[in-house]
Every structure is written in structure tokens, then in C-alpha cells.
């Protein structure tokens, strides 16, 4: 076993043998970092919801805006629940990328849920709105607003649209709720299409 002296190994073979562990280590490090980053996105999304639940409860109790953490640039505006799927999430003000990392966003310039017009909530397809694909026509969506008002919506239909031609009219007659996420639901790449779930207020 030890008989083969190291010098018998041609130098051609030695060079890569020093390189490949280094390459392997770099690949492993970058790989671990990327996986960590991916997990962080999910962890952040999950943890934020816990903090948001608290802030939202405080808001409903106090009737004022409560920031979930001191440096937050957004705040909870509503709690959304799909009882059949036991899915729920706290909706944040604004549909910016920063807010969407923590929870569904209430798209700017659309009315509050339950008010006349169409309220639009959007969230990431792989975190908070991962359940959206299972939502079917007839499902009930319950929205509790910051001011404590609760509205019940009934899903009417679902649709795939382009982000810039959604056809959603925030001033449409009646009271509607639209939930939006990226389409296709299982894709990993960003694209121009959105999956929207339309619901009408049920009395």
C-alpha cells in the first residue's frame, strides 16, 4: 500500500489534485450560501408573519397603526383567511418588493377590502400565496381589517393575466376582492403573467 512512492504520480496528475479540493470547497461554500439565502427568504416570510400577527392584534385593539418592528416601512392593514384551506396571512400596506418579503401587500390605489370597488392583495407565489392555486370558485375568503371590520368574500373565478393589462378596475361597481400572485405557480423564474383570484362580497 505504502510502497508506491509519491513521485511515481506524474506531475500532470498532481496539479489538479490540489486544485480540485479548492474548487470543490468554493462550490460547496457558494452552494451553501445560496441555499442559506433561499432559506432566509422563506424564514423571513414566516417569521415576519408571527410579528405581524402581534402587530395586527395590537392595531385592532388600539385602532392605530402599529409598526411590526421599529424600522418597518409598512404596517399591517388586514388579516386574510381562507377557512377551507386553513390558510391565513397578514396583509401589509403597499405592494412594494420590500413589503412583499414579509407578507401579502395591499396594492396601492385600490380601496380597502369591503369598500366599494376592487381591493387588490398581491403576494409571492412561493410563500404567502402558495395556497392560492388550491383556492377554487365558491371558496370563502374572510378579511378582517385593521379597524376591526370583517368582510366575507366568495370566490367567483380565477384568471391568468399580464401584469400590465390585468383588467382590474379599482373603481368597479360593487365590492370585490382580488388576490394576485405570479404565474405559473410552480415556476422559479419571474415572468409577466399573474394568476388572479376574483371574489365578490357575500352578505
Amino acid at each position, binding site marked *: 500500500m505504502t510502497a508506491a512512492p509519491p513521485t511515481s504520480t506524474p506531475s500532470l496528475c498532481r496539479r489538479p489534485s490540489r486544485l*480540485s479540493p479548492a474548487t*470543490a470547497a468554493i462550490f*460547496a461554500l457558494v452552494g451553501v450560501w445560496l*441555499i442559506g439565502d433561499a432559506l432566509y427568504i422563506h424564514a423571513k416570510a414566516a417569521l415576519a408573519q408571527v410579528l405581524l400577527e402581534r402587530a395586527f392584534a395590537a392595531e385592532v385593539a388600539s385602532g392605530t397603526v402599529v409598526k411590526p418592528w421599529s424600522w418597518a416601512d409598512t404596517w399591517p392593514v388586514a388579516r386574510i383567511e381562507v377557512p377551507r384551506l386553513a390558510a391565513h396571512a397578514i396583509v401589509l400596506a403597499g405592494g412594494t418588493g420590500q413589503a412583499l418579503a414579509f407578507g401579502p401587500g395591499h396594492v396601492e*390605489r385600490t380601496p380597502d377590502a369591503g369598500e366599494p370597488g376592487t381591493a387588490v392583495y*398581491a403576494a409571492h*407565489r412561493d410563500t404567502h400565496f402558495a395556497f392560492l392555486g388550491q383556492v377554487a370558485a365558491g371558496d370563502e375568503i374572510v378579511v378582517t381589517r385593521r379597524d376591526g371590520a370583517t368582510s366575507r368574500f366568495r370566490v367567483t373565478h380565477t384568471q*391568468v393575466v399580464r401584469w400590465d*393589462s*390585468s383588467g382590474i378596475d379599482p373603481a368597479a361597481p360593487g365590492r370585490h376582492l382580488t388576490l394576485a400572485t405570479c404565474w405559473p405557480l410552480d415556476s422559479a423564474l419571474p415572468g409577466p403573467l399573474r394568476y388572479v383570484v376574483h371574489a365578490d362580497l357575500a352578505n
Partner: protein
Amino acid sequence: MNVQTMDASLQTSRSEANGSEEPSHVHSRRHHPSFPIGVAITLALAIAAIFAALGGARAGGPTTGLPIVSSLADARIGSLLLRDGERYVEAPRLATDIDIALSGPTLRARITQMFNNPTANWVEAVYVNPLPDGGAVDTLKMVIGDRIVVGEIKERVEAKAIYEDAKRAGRKATLIEQERPNIFTNSVANIGPGETVVVQIEYQEPVHRTGNESSLRVPLVVAPRYNPAPVVQTVDFGGRGWGRTSEPHRDPVPDRGRITPPVLDPRIEPPTNPVAITVHLNAGFPLGDVKSHHHAVKIDAPADDTRVIRLDSNVVPADRDFELTWTPAATEAPSVGLFREHVGDADYLLALVTPPLLADAQKEALAREIVFVIDNSGSMGGTSITQAKASLLFALDRLKSNDRFNVIRFDHTMDALFTDTVAADADNIARAKGFVSALQASGGTEMVPPMRAALSDRRGQDSQYLRQVVFLTDGEIGNEQELFDTIAAMRGRSRVFMVGIGSAPNSFLMTRAAEIGRGTFTHIGSVEQVQQRMRELVEKLESPAVTGLTATYTGGAMDATPGILPDLYRGEPVVIAAKLGALDGTLEIKGMIGARPWTVTLPVAKAAEGTGLSKLWARRKITDAEMAKRLRQASAEETNKRVLGLALEHHLVSRLTSLVAVDATPSRPEGARLSRAELPLNLPAGWDFDKVFGERKTNDHRINDQPSTPTLERRADAGSVPVPVKPAPAAFAVASNTSAGVALPKTATDAELKLMAGLLLLVLSLLLVLSRHPRHHTAH
């Protein structure tokens, strides 16, 4: 990918190695030298494969049957499709040649635009054309074959009627209208199939000078603008059914449809509108450094005071301003320039005088209260926000300990860092730097509220402070007038210094806002310019201003402009254009540099011959008249009368006058259709398309009364079947489709991608480790 599989593969390779040592050794000997490269290639291929697979999944994904048009690749380079009813036709093309002859204090630019119609139909081409805001546009020529039709100046309404008549009658016609002092619309009617119509526009402009440096700027593209939505009237009910509507609000951008041409998405479309530029620079003094700031150029030097500047690459896409600066060979530029021109029965004079720099004046400088305002709206996305942040950080570093300051950021919302200005101590400056560094560009551009906040003077009684507002923006808004009104009403003792950021800022807004705010306009067009330009600005902020300037003429009547000479900052010259009754007196300019009086006397008879001075005088008088209206010093009727008189007499395009040229002979046969084509513009260099149009979309759904052109659609692909999923550039949707609904935000994270890439790398690293095992066995 689970651990078991990996273990299994580990076992396999081991047993193989044990079973046949020698082949394994040979194998490793043959392949190991290139192994890292091989791995890199494998990795790249694997990642590419994953992306392709995902892309495929995306394209094939929708089960709803929505077709995704993938024919973008089929689109012919440089062609644009225009939907005319149900058919698609190619849009006309435009190539531009700009020739600038610069002599002494003025320049004359000749812009030759070639409109080519590659389609089989008759078209009307409409091009939204940028021109310098100080330029006097006085000549229009239309060349058809070997005929030249010279344009005439007419009242705007009349010119439009003449043009429309010609258009209907099938005659070729060109119309140049002013939308803003720096935005003109150029319409060319009845370009036949395969035909090229050449349109030539000429303008006169003064050369800009600050300190030792002279400059000229040719805007090549009108940047997309943020146009705030009109305010809707609300109703207050008294309680018995009778109500009262609120004050009727005007739309802040009444002409929004005229200043929002389609914009190409540079990721989809190749750049369009090629431009060639030649500058014949005849400075009148030996030249030192001549520099083009944003374009590569070739410079020839036939004489020591003459240069010929040409683009290095012959043509460039019209996507950024062309900026040329030059300095004298001597250390100091001449401090006085005096030029005259005789036109009709009047003499016109142009005087430039640079006040001296006083070495000891620095000490008299008061402590300052400075409010920095930074625009972080979507149009600033890309390189602009980087420039703005770098500029502001530079200025923060130069604050003195006895100064007070605050920082305000805005998009369609705004935040002030401190509730009031604070002392410029190390703590506060550090906080401000953190605030600025964290800014990201997104959102609309509501410029009035932050200007209002910056001008609110809480220390009005305390004359200990010199109050300055430094406003960093690209100025891409359509409601300029609202901002001017705000500055005029609230300026008080504050002075407003505009810093224009980006490759094509709205120089009209910048210049006028600085003028009303009695400050200066600094332009920063690239990151490389930040240091030098900001240093100059900071020097201006720190040095005493030249105030109380007056000009008197002993030789008789003088009609001078600007009517009220503005205050000057370090290095800036007094520029006076005047119409004189006789050329035999002296012009005396007086003012205060800091606390010291300053006088200079110029014998007018010694003036050198200049050209185009009357046009510059008239253009400047028009600017004065418009300014008086803005400041509510003159009524609208009075202003209109003055502007119209000046423009018609001096043959200038203005808000109220247009140039129109009509061919005498009809060319379009009766019955042949004519379609209208708005020529698309490039997105200014360094801009982020999504930041502008992704954001703007959200505002547009409110604007239901926007005059749209629903029959006009531009498509990037060559496919002709209308499909529900539009592959057209978003700009088209913005321009023509206002009822598209709420724009939905991006709702995809890259978590999955990262996870997959990470796992892939881990597997590869394991494979790498494993691949070494066989050799270890042979070594044992």
C-alpha cells in the same frame, strides 16, 4: 437530491476503483489536467439547461391556453410595426444629422431629419423632438426630391389649419410646434410608400459659460415624464341634498397626450433614431481642452482657435444629451465679451461680463441653512440614483460645523430626515449619509410637496443664516408650471440650486426653477462628472453672490433682457442682450460682490460683429414675458400679445407660433389612405425601463380622460395575429391603453432558483471530491 443517492454513487465509484485499478488511473491521468475547466463548462451547461427547462416550463406552463408569442426573435432589426386598424404596417424611420457652427458667443445648429417610409402605405410621421430650451427656432425647410419648400411662421392655430388642409388635400407638409420651450413636435404629412422626406430645422442659441469653461448641450431625446393625475372635484353636501363642488381643479398637465410619445424598451428593441453630429467650433480665442462628455468624438484642429468635432462612430442612437465643453489655452478666459448685429433699423448687442473673484470675500460668508432634496422616483432608477447619491454625499461632506442642514427624499411620497434643520455635527452628518445611502429609486414624481417643505423657512426672523435649497432631480415631470408657482410663492429669502441628474434631464424645468429661485442649475450627466461639478456647486454655495446688478446705457434708448438681472454665483458671467437705438454710448454694469460695490463700463462702439443676436434677444424677451406671467406680474392676454408680436417679427417658433411648410403640388392620390405614425423614442441611457413604466402604470389607471390613440399600436414582433398576451413593449400599452387595469406587482421570489443553484453546486463539489477517490486508491 438526497444524501442516500449521493452515498450510493460514492459506493459505486469505490467499487469500480477497487475492481480495476489501472484503467481508473489512466482515466484520471487523461482527464485531470483539464478537470477544473471541464467542471466549469459542465456547470455552465447545467445551469443553462435548468434555465432553459424553467423557461420552457414557463412558456408551456399555462394550462389556460394563453399563447405566449415567441416570435420576438423573428422581428426584423430596426423595424417597428404600427397597427393601422386590423393591419400591421411598418413605422416610418428617422435619421438625423446635426451640424453646429459655433462662432464666438453664439451657435447656429442645423438639424436635418430624414423621414423614410419603408411601408406600402402613405403615412404621417409625428416625432417628439427635443431642442435646447434657450434655442431660437427660426427656420424650417422641407426637401422633396430636388425641390425645397421654405416654412413660414404663423400663429399656432392658423399653422395647424394650413397643415391639416394640406394633409387632407394630399400635399406634403411639415409643421413644427412648441410643446414646452425644450419639447417640439414635428409632423410630416403624406410621405409616400418608399419615399424619404427631408426636414431641416435651424436654431440659434447662446453659448453657455461658467468660470473658465464654455459649453454647449444638444438634447437628443425627450425623456419619459411623470404626469401627475388631474385632481377630481369633490362634493360637500350641506345636509339637505344641496351640495357644493370644491374649487375646480385644472389638470396639472393639460397637454399630457402631446408630450408622451411611445418609448422603446431597450431590452426588446434595438436603439432607434440614429444621429450624426458635427460641431465647427470657432471660439475666438486659442483653445485649450475640448471635451465631449458623453460621446466618443474625433477632434481636428485646423487652427489654434478652431476645432472640428465629429462623432467617433459616425452615428449614435438618440438616447442621451450631447455635451461639449472647452476652455481657453490661457489660464484665464477673457472676462468681457461684446458683440453687435444690425438687423432692419435696429442694433442688437450681446454683452458677457464675468465679475472678478475676490480672494478675501470668503471670510464674509455667513453660516448657512441648507436643505438637500433628493429625487428617488422610478425615473431616477439605474445610474441616475447613483449619481444623485454620490453628489449628495459629496455635498454633505463639505458642510461646515456652523451650518444647519436637513435632507428630504421624495417619489410620490416624501420623508424629511429631521423634523427641522439640525447642526451639521458629525453625528447628524453620519445619520444623513446613512439615510442617503439606503435610498432606492421607485415610485412617481410628486415634486411640489418636497419643494414646499424645503422652502418652509422656520427661522425667517434670524438673518444669521443664508438659506439655500439644493434640489437633485432629473426633472422629468409634465407639471412644470405647478413647481414654478410653488417656488415663486414660497421662495422668501431661500435660494434654490437645481442639480440636474442623468443622461437627458429636463433642462427647461431646471433652468427656470433655478432662475425663479435665484440660484443656479448644475448638470451632472455621468458618475465621472459628480466630483468636478459638485465641487463647483459647493464653491458657488460658499462664495458670496453678486447681487443688485443693474445695467444702464448712455447712448439713448435701450431695451435690455433679462429685464431684472439675476444674482450671480462664483464664475458666472452677466449676460445681457439688448436692442439699441444707436451704437454710440457706454453700457455700465453695477452690482455688489458680497458687501463690496463693483462697476464695469463697456464702450459699445468697440463691439465685434456677431450673428443671430436679434433672434437671441427676441427669444430671451419671450422667456421674460412668459416668466412675468408665471410670476403673476402680467396677465395672460398681455403676455400672449407680447409673445406673439416678438415671435412673428423675428420669425420664431413659440408657444403661440409654429413653422409650417406646404408643398404646392399634391402627391397622395385621391382615395389612398393616410395613417398616422408617432415615432417612438429611445429610453434615455442609464434609465431602468421597468422603474419608469412599471410604476407609471399604477398611476395611469386613474387618468380616464387622457386623450389616447386607440387605433395606434406598436408591436415588437412580426406576428400579425392579435393575441391576448401582448409581446409589445410596455410603452405602447402606456401610450394607447389607459383601461388596462391595476398593474400587479412582481410576486416571485428567487428563493427557488437560489435553492436549486445552491444544491447543484453542492452536488458538483461532492462529485469533485469523489472523483479524487479512485486515484487515492491507486496511490495506496
